[in-house]
């Protein structure tokens, strides 16, 4: 299948600082892709390059079959972009803001108002469409931003930090909305965030982006398999009584082969196994007359994945003395204002 967003060796430098370094990324039609990385990783810069809002130093960004640098207008016709701090004309109402954007997108004037109201209804702003955008809260602005994106019937939606500054309940609603939209209209969504849990909730695939480089990409299961596969699964079992030391069953269970380690502390047993054999362990323990209170299997979520990648990239930075680059960037950031 032809990817709808295709970045090839995309690089962007600010002075000597590499904001984006040889980025290769493919996003396919209909999927939700999460670009995950800490602040200053180059997420926004990559997104700007996909829309032709800034020029790459080298490499190409193709979106919907068009080169974003050479033909940004064609790309912008098919892509809806919500910037991280989206602003509106404060003296205009939400509806007026939306209609203005619709006109800029060359939408049919006769149905424009109905269309705008429909979109406001989708994002849940139907009740406040005649209020001035200036009095909107952060969450409402974020929704109006989504309405902006939807009114032009895009093929791809790019959301830059869409969950920033919304309360937890709002985040959940917002993400559900994005997921539903993507499923019902077959939209491709690319969203960037530094909030792993938000990304974990909705994204089909994630890319971990640190220091301008894409460290890993794939769905969460394969990412964790990549990272923690060698460590295997960990099962923790808590029993009613204290486990006697030395434990008589230990030698027997070690015969299974899958077990690599057994740690015993008080009433808790921790089994490290090559692959997941939790049911077998539990059955065995019950047969042997142990009263089990609690069984837990350690799963690797994005948190651990994130942590792991950041640790390694942080160590790398220390080793290669990249801190000087960070310093320069801070200086440049001030200079740019």
């Amino acid at each position, binding site marked *: 299948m032809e990817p709808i967003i295709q970045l090839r060796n995309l690089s962007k430098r600010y002075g000597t600082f590499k904001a984006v370094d040889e980025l290769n990324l493919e996003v396919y039609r209909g999927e939700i892709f999460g670009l995950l990385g800490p602040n200053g990783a180059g997420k926004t810069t990559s997104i700007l390059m996909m829309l032709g809002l800034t020029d790459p130093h080298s490499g190409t960004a193709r979106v919907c079959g068009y080169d974003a640098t050479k033909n940004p207008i064609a790309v912008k016709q098919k892509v809806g972009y919500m910037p991280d701090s989206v602003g509106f004309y404060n003296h205009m109402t939400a509806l007026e803001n939306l209609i203005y954007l619709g006109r800029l997108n060359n939408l049919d004037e006769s149905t424009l108002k109905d269309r705008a109201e429909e979109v406001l209804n989708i994002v849940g702003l139907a009740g406040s469409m005649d209020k001035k955008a200036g009095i909107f809260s952060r969450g409402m602005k974020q929704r109006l931003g989504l309405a902006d994106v939807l009114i032009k019937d895009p093929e791809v939606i790019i959301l830059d930090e869409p969950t920033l500054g919304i309360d937890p309940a709002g985040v959940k609603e917002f993400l559900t909305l994005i997921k539903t939209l993507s499923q019902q*209209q077959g939209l491709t969504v690319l969203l960037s965030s530094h909030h792993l849990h938000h990304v974990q909730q909705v994204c089909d695939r994630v890319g971990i982006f640190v220091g301008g480089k894409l460290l890993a990409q794939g769905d969460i299961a394969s990412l964790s398999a990549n990272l923690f596969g060698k460590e295997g699964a960990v099962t923790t079992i808590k029993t009613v009584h204290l486990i006697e030391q030395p434990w008589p069953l230990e030698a027997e269970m070690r015969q299974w082969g899958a077990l690599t380690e057994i740690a015993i502390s008080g009433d808790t047993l921790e089994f490290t196994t090559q692959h997941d054999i939790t049911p077998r362990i539990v059955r065995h323990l019950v047969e042997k007359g142990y009263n089990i209170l609690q069984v837990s299997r350690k799963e690797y979520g994005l948190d651990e994945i994130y942590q792991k990648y950041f640790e390694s990239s942080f160590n790398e930075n220390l080793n290669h003395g990249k801190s000087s680059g960070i310093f320069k960037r801070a200086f440049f950031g001030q200079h740019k204002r």
Partner: protein
Amino acid sequence: MENQAVSLSALSSGSTKDKKHTAPPQPNRAFGVIIRKEIADHIRSWRFLVLVALVLLTFVASLYVSVSNIRTTFTNTNDPDHAFMYLKLLTSTDNTMPPFHVLLSFLAPLLGISMGFDAINSEQNNGTLTRLLAQPIYRDNLLLAKFSGAILIVGMLFLSLTLLMIGGGLVLTGVRLEAQELIRIMGFVFVTLLYVAFYLSLSILLSIVFRQPATAALSALGLWLFFTVFYPIIVNLIIRAFLPDPAYLTQAQVMGYNEFILDILRIAPNQLYTDAATTLLMPSIRSLGPMSMEQMAGAIPSPLPVKESLMIVWPQLSGMIASSTGCFAIAYYLFMRREIRS
């Protein structure tokens, strides 16, 4: 999104079925849309009301002064221009306050600067610039729309003021308006607009360069002040240092130097504007440079035909058009490949 069930059902019923709302492509529609919004914004803004009040005040005050002594100017046969009543309305004064066209040479830059100093940077600070440029519009359309929106408004303002003046004069005095006068007055409005256009494009340029609107406004005002006050002083100082003693020069050389000094002064747009405005409004002005006695000899102090006056101001007009276009070109260059970040 309090009732999510409702909103999601609305979603599934709509938009998926009628997928394309887009009308057949009309390339320049976005340009018109932005201009319309810009004009609406300007008209509703307090800033514009203040400016209109200032211009109106100037207009009424100077018209009052000139109307109250129009009889003496009109019957003053020593003045070759005395028969042009409507031109006299704009230029005559009893020395209590400067005439309209001089006042306007101060107001026009103010108008241009205040309409443009926050054109781009305020959008950027509000985060609306990213939103705007994420739409399928050309960047130059945005710049051009900002410029034309403001100039259209100022043009309308000046045109209606002038027509008001002419109409009022017709009703009050009953003196017939000559075609020549109408052309001259319209020419004056056009020149004033060009002058506004220069400062407008300068301030739009500064609004791209500086991120803070206040900085842009201040530097535009600074440039204006430099051109009106300091530039002539500096030119005089420098020229005086280089100029040989006039006592040892032939008359032709003195004239040559004078011409040279004037040419340098004409780099300043306000000099161009004053030259052009006075020539258009005072038909008896025959040259903007120095004239020798031979040229003056035999000349009858009489008004020039419109065509001749226009010929005299043509270089001034081209100069002003060129400087506005220059500013606009730099603005365009800076803006086209710029990174748009909120």
